[in-house]
């Protein structure tokens, strides 16, 4: 599957998004601001994660009208979220023609045991992961891009850092193991041996690896990229800040110059206030989004 033309096209679009910022937007105006600021793609949804957290209730796929309006307005790729395991929401998004589907823990899961079998879709999928086993299971199901989950809507980078560090460390560990040890490791990770062997040989995931969940400042974006993320998703961080336009531009600059402190300083100036963040350790266990996904 990983060598098929179709899978190559799916990961190919993710390759094009590297070094960029994918921004959550809830309407046409926000989508325009994102595009003008230099977003590589937008994620169309009804409520940003911090509002989903605040409002409660069931969070579903966004309204088709909103997604379609955004698709008609911007020239950059448009992504949309489907609930975990909700393969018919995903089929609707495929029929609509979005460019990428995010099978996302930010929405209320539709299936508490299974994810969507993503191999049968023509549209590529991105899925969240907190560790290597979760990432490889999603890839085995057909995900063409992984994003570390972080804790969406928290404005707190601590979980995103934990997840990217965990995945990078687990990948490094595989590269020093012998063949027979990889079989045991595949069992521990709960992931297919074929993929475990691929990671051991290459030291990276077979699909692009992005970061999400809690990225609120230019320095946050640069931090996760220095830790190994190849691009970033910014959800509530932009449109819940004091000056979304300036912040969106600053995030784009930070994703490009993540290794250049002088440019990061420029990106960090005159930004207005960042979104108000949450202490993740104070969020009740049942309200954590990152634990959704199996």
């Amino acid at each position, binding site marked *: 599957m990983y*060598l098929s*033309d179709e899978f*190559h*096209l799916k990961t*190919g*679009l993710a*390759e*094009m*998004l*590297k*070094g*960029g910022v994918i921004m959550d937007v809830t309407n046409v105006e926000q989508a325009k601001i994102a*595009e*003008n*600021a*230099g*977003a*590589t*793609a937008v994620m169309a949804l009804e409520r940003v994660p911090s509002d989903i957290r605040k409002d409660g209730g069931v969070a579903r796929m966004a309204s088709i009208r909103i997604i379609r309006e955004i*698709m008609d307005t911007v*020239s*950059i*790729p448009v992504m949309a979220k489907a609930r975990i395991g909700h393969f018919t929401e995903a089929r609707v998004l*495929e029929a609509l*023609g*979005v*460019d*990428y589907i995010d099978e996302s823990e930010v929405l209320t899961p539709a299936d508490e045991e299974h994810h969507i079998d993503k191999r049968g879709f*023509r*549209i*590529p999928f991105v899925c969240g992961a907190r560790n290597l086993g979760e990432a490889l299971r999603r890839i085995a199901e057909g995900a063409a891009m992984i994003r570390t989950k972080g804790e969406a809507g928290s404005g707190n980078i601590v979980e995103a850092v934990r997840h990217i560090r965990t995945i990078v460390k687990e990948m490094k560990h595989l590269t020093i193991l012998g063949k027979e040890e990889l079989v045991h490791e595949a069992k521990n990770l709960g992931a297919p041996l074929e993929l475990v062997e691929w990671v051991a040989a290459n030291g990276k995931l077979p699909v692009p690896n992005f970061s999400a969940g809690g990225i609120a400042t230019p320095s946050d974006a640069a931090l996760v990229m220095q830790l190994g993320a190849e691009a970033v998703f910014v959800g509530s961080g932009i449109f819940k800040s004091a000056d979304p336009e300036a912040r969106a*531009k600053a995030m*784009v*600059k930070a*994703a*490009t*110059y993540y290794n*250049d402190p002088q440019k990061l300083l420029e990106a960090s100036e005159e930004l207005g206030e960042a979104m108000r963040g949450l202490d993740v350790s104070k969020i009740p266990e049942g309200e954590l989004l990152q634990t959704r996904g199996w």
Partner: protein
Amino acid sequence: MVSAQNWLAPLKTVGVLALQGDFEAHRSAVLRAVASSSDFPEVQVAEVRTAAQLAACDGLIIPGGESTTMLKLLEVENLMGPLRDFASCKPVYGSCAGAILLARDVMHPPQPSLGLLDIAVERNAYGRQADSRIAKITTEDGSGMQAVFIRAPIIRRVAGDVIVLADYEGNPVWVEQGRHMVTTFHPELSLSGDTRVHQRFLRKL
């Protein structure tokens, strides 16, 4: 004056614009192309994000990615001028988004560009991601090539002394004019490891 350069083959530097996009894939493709033939002198590949980094290069590749994102960054970081100056004496190759940035005219929607080749391109002309494809294109020597198109533009018009090196469905997909070259597809993502496009660019250095 005697320097190490005199008895080693001169080392050329291929820059890859690394503002955003698949610049890593281009780095690998350049190194594969160099390894494919003993004719090539040794080259080094450098990521380019600033005017100073650009000035140190003998040629530049603008990778695939989002052309609007690259354009914003080129403008904000004041790199359009240095890029034009660079292109007035050194070769530039653009793939997909790079082709859009190098074109004279851009449509659907219109946007500024460097205008290094007399071509008009229409963005996302095949449609959305569902219309991305791997297809066999016809090269000028008749041999054909597997080409990866991702939300690709179409070259709607070529003018002046633009040479068409390959076409697909009746539209040019690989063209050059003087020292500059564009492809609307992604040879850097070739599954077969075909390096002909990058080899041609290396010969321009």
